[in-house]
């Protein structure tokens, strides 16, 4: 049995446990795993480069930052809090059930690839954090 490819996994776990820089840890793990698995350096660089080009869209989060940051500057969080405060008998269920229903409908329409990522989250997440405060839920320590 060829155990060598698992060396990269060890590098990854050790690097994260030692709190080394995660980017460097991840890339080193790939390098180690590839070399240990018998790939040539050029092979590894090719694989890295192709995977990078194919997956660049994962960074679309960055493009949403101007809009999100602007709304935050204009008081998005305070407005979300005021909105929740205005609800009669706010509860987790009353906020989360409609929110999850909307997410489900969006996913049905085909918004699966991004609907879960951060830009879609801030408004509802802040609302939940605020709810946690008002309902003195145990989540309060996280907010």
């Amino acid at each position, binding site marked *: 049995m060829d155990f060598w490819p698992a060396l990269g996994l060890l590098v990854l776990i050790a690097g994260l446990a030692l709190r080394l820089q995660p980017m460097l840890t991840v890339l080193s793990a790939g390098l180690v795993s*590839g070399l240990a698995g018998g790939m040539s350096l050029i092979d590894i660089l090719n694989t890295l*480069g192709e995977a990078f080009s194919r997956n660049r869209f994962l960074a679309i989060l960055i493009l949403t*930052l101007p*809009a999100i940051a602007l709304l935050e500057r204009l008081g998005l969080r305070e407005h979300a809090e005021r909105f929740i405060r205005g609800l009669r008998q706010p509860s987790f269920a009353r906020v989360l059930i409609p929110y999850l229903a909307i997410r489900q409908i969006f996913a049905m329409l085909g918004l699966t690839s991004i609907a879960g990522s951060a830009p879609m989250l801030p408004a509802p997440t802040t609302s939940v954090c605020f709810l946690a405060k008002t309902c003195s839920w145990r989540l309060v320590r996280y907010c």
Partner: protein
Amino acid sequence: MSVLWPIYLAIALVMLRLGWRRFSAGDQAGTAFWTVLAILFVAADWMPPAVVGGGLLLVGVLSALPQGKLETLIKTVQASEPRTTVLRPALLIPLLTVALMLIAKTVQWQGQPLLDATQATLYGLACSVLLVWWATSFTWRVSPRLGFESGVEVLDRLGWAAVLPLALATLGAVFAKAGLGVLVSDLVRLAVPADSGFLLVVAYALGMAVFTMVMGNAFAAFPVLSIGIAVPLLIQGQGYAAAPVVAIGMLSGYCGTLMTPMAANFNLVPAILLELKDRNAVIKAQAPTGAALLIVNILLIYFLAKPA
């Protein structure tokens, strides 16, 4: 040239701006980190893959160099008037994204759809955030630069976490090529008696969750474990029904997603954006759900897929 290139260019512009501000602040490592990334984003289509891979390694090294702190450029914020609510533009982003995506899907070029589903979604999101950014600046009578510079500052706070999912995706590709899947399969064959369906199901679901926790992405774990365990041992070996095994197997991977800092875009980025005191708050809140769901998933695979 990728059909998504305009989006990559826009992302690179935000990165370049951060690089420039890092340069003004006299921080060389930060400048190089964001500039190299921006170049890779724009030019990867024209560079040999090996050069892109080398650039990515360089970015990794740069991220580990000590980086200077950046002071906030925009300190004064005009207080928003209490009567106007920014909730509306915030809610407009997802709504516009869906609408634009549905439109983008129908665009045709010489009888062929121009964009596939993922590309249409990405264009929908990109156009909707740009529209909301522009419209909000216009309505609230602030310069569009306020949003842009604020976004750059948020990116600065996120730092490497913003591109970690990308690095993990490349790691998954290398792991697969290095033969990690074969090793997993061999190990499971050794450890689990081949006639014990339940233990194989446990190994598969648990393996999906653990691999996802390590790699940060269920899609990276899925081929490794499905080719390693699900297909040869469960489906072909024991006659389990393929659809429930792999569908719920994927779901077991998502249980891992709930419990790992490696899924940075779900678990770390929101914590940073919301300025939570504890960066792991999201994970701590999700872990019990993830563990409970994993147990349910194991039972579901076993009882739904087991041959009668």
